[in-house]
């Protein structure tokens, strides 16, 4: 069977070689990089612009953005016909191609995030290592931890006031540098689509900007939801500890801190949401108004074939409802959870409608293609480019985040700057 034939259904006249070649993994790719970029921008709001209220969530989203990093290239690799040749993009980049820049942009960004994370946690590494060094007898685990943290200090043991100040300045600089790079990383994902002149739906110079805005929206949403989830778990643990030791501070303190963080962050979410919707609508209106040759088929895709996906799920459930939820006075945690989940759904559907929707019509402009997501994998292909492959990609950052949480304290305020 030809690649793509399993999940493509053709209607009317489609060129014989046309199938839906870019599938669920290419939906996941901008979705995941969007989360990376968005989470980073959120953390930078605190580090660069000094938005104090975001302090707690800033460290958290920085760590999260780091955990998301390796996952940005996972869907790309999974969708390649030759995943093991993927490295060629780094070795022999062909620079007229938008994808060729991936290696450079991605590594630069990765290094910035890693360096920033290191500066934020350097003091903690040094202190932990020193503490462990003091012990005369170390158990095996302690020994491993000692080596790990000593290595993580990279030999910079100086934690005097002066050098910590320097750290802080470095963090600020890296965060500032990171914002344009994060935007570039994601804007360029938009450019990959926006520059395909053969595709009537994709080709628009607005694509990179739309991608950046929705990326920030999704990144913030994911940080909020993960933040709430981890806080709930912490509260549960705290309540359990409280039972054994009534001397600990009451649970109310944690609660109010959580709500305040969430309210503050959701304000930024709404701001970027408005920007994203405005641009998307502008694009739509402009296409309808100029009505070039391809508009006939685009219209039947947008207003007919994909109407439910675009207007009901993406704009209705993914944008309008959360908008109302967040703007209603007295935000509660429960409402924030529903809102952010819907926002994530909305951004995911936006990626879906761009990637799959862009292939819903033939370049003959005289026929349609329908995508059927392979659910149960019966071959490597339907696993990689099916539901389970997508779920694998979606689950990985949480596993990495959990692992990262074993090494650095993402929540306790004491140990970091």
């Amino acid at each position, binding site marked *: *069977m030809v690649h793509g034939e399993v999940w493509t259904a053709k209607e009317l*006249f489609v060129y014989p*070689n046309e199938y839906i070649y870019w599938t669920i993994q290419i939906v996941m790719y901008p979705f995941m990089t969007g989360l990376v970029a968005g989470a980073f921008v959120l953390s930078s709001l605190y580090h660069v612009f000094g938005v104090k209220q975001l302090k707690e969530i800033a460290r958290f989203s920085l760590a999260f953005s780091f955990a998301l990093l390796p996952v940005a290239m996972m869907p790309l690799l999974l*969708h390649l016909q030759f995943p093991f040749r993927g490295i*060629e993009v780094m070795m022999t980049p062909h620079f007229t*191609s938008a994808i060729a820049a991936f290696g450079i942009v991605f590594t630069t960004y990765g290094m910035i995030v890693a360096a920033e994370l290191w500066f934020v946690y350097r003091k903690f590494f040094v202190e932990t290592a020193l503490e462990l060094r003091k012990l005369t007898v170390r158990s095996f685990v302690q020994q491993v931890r000692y080596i790990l943290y000593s290595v993580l200090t990279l030999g910079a043991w100086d934690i005097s006031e002066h050098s910590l100040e320097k750290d802080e300045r470095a963090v600020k600089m890296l965060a500032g540098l990171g914002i344009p790079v994060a935007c570039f990383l994601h804007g360029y994902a938009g450019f990959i689509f926006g520059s395909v002149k053969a595709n009537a739906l994709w080709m628009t110079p607005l694509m990179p900007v739309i991608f950046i805005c929705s990326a920030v929206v999704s990144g913030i949403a994911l940080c909020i939801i993960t933040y709430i989830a981890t806080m709930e778990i912490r509260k549960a643990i705290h309540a359990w500890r409280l039972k054994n030791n009534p001397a600990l501070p009451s649970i109310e303190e944690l609660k109010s801190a959580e709500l305040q963080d969430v309210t503050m962050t959701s304000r930024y979410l709404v701001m970027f949401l408005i920007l994203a919707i405005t641009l998307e609508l502008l694009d739509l209106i402009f296409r309808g108004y100029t009505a070039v040759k391809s508009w006939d088929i685009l219209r039947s895709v947008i207003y007919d074939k994909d109407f439910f996906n675009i207007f009901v799920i993406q704009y209705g459930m993914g944008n309008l409802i959360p908008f109302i939820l967040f703007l209603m006075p007295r935000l509660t945690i429960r409402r924030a959870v529903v809102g952010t989940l819907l926002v994530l759904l909305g951004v995911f559907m936006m990626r879906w409608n761009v990637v799959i929707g862009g292939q819903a019509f033939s370049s*003959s402009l005289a026929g349609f293609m329908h995508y059927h997501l392979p659910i149960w994998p019966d071959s490597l292909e339907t696993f990689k480019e099916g539901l389970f492959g997508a779920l694998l990609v979606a689950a990985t950052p949480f596993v990495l985040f959990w692992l990262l949480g074993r090494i650095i304290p993402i929540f306790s305020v004491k140990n970091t700057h």
Partner: protein
Amino acid sequence: MITRRNFCKKSLLLIGGMAVPLAALEIFNPGRLSAEKDDPAKVRWVFLVDTFKCVGCGFCVRACKLENEIPYDANVSRTWVERYVVTKDGQVHTDSPKAARDGFTSKSIDQASRGLLEIKDEDIDKAFFVPKLCNQCDNPPCVQVCPVGATYQTPDGVVLVDRTWCIGCGYCVMGCPYGVRFFHPVYKAAEKCNFCYHRISKGLKSACVEACPFGARRIGNIKDPEDPVTRIIMTERVAVLKEEYGTKPQVFYLGMSREVK
């Protein structure tokens, strides 16, 4: 005081040291490079399709599949033939069942998932066939977008794919406005028509050109003014497909109609 030994050593070093930049001058001799660039290749392959002559027998598609080892039953093909039927109500019906590998044996139009469409003979205003293949564009977007340079253009104008280097990202498939490209069912790499490069570079004709019993397909060298194909392209009214994309396609059509997509 300089010893002889030292002198020899120093002068060898000096010569060696000077040779390095001189060698660079030799390697990067701009004069030679530009001469190579300006020296126009003697050959630029182009294709001429005479749609008046095409009867939709599909011999070319069959010949291509066999010549280029595209699995016979796979639903992809390097070349295909489209049938256009324009009815009195102004509607255009198009199809290309199995890429027209077996020709057009039935009068009904294949509408894929919508089934077959019967059209009465008296409702038809005009009907014709259009063979399609890679346009070997002069400004090929497929080459531009390949992230690893696995798709490239030869000096004689043909766009080729390096199967050993293609990573299978599909960007070129997306970038081609003509729907020419696909993934080879066996080799997995990107695949497309290359005018039978292995044949034309040996002085033979492309397989489809050989196979066409009506002379609807012809290949020629546009750099050669005496070439009959060149003469037709230069002196008659020819059209290309989807010019608006700026790809500068090099497959020319006689008898093109506005309905053709």
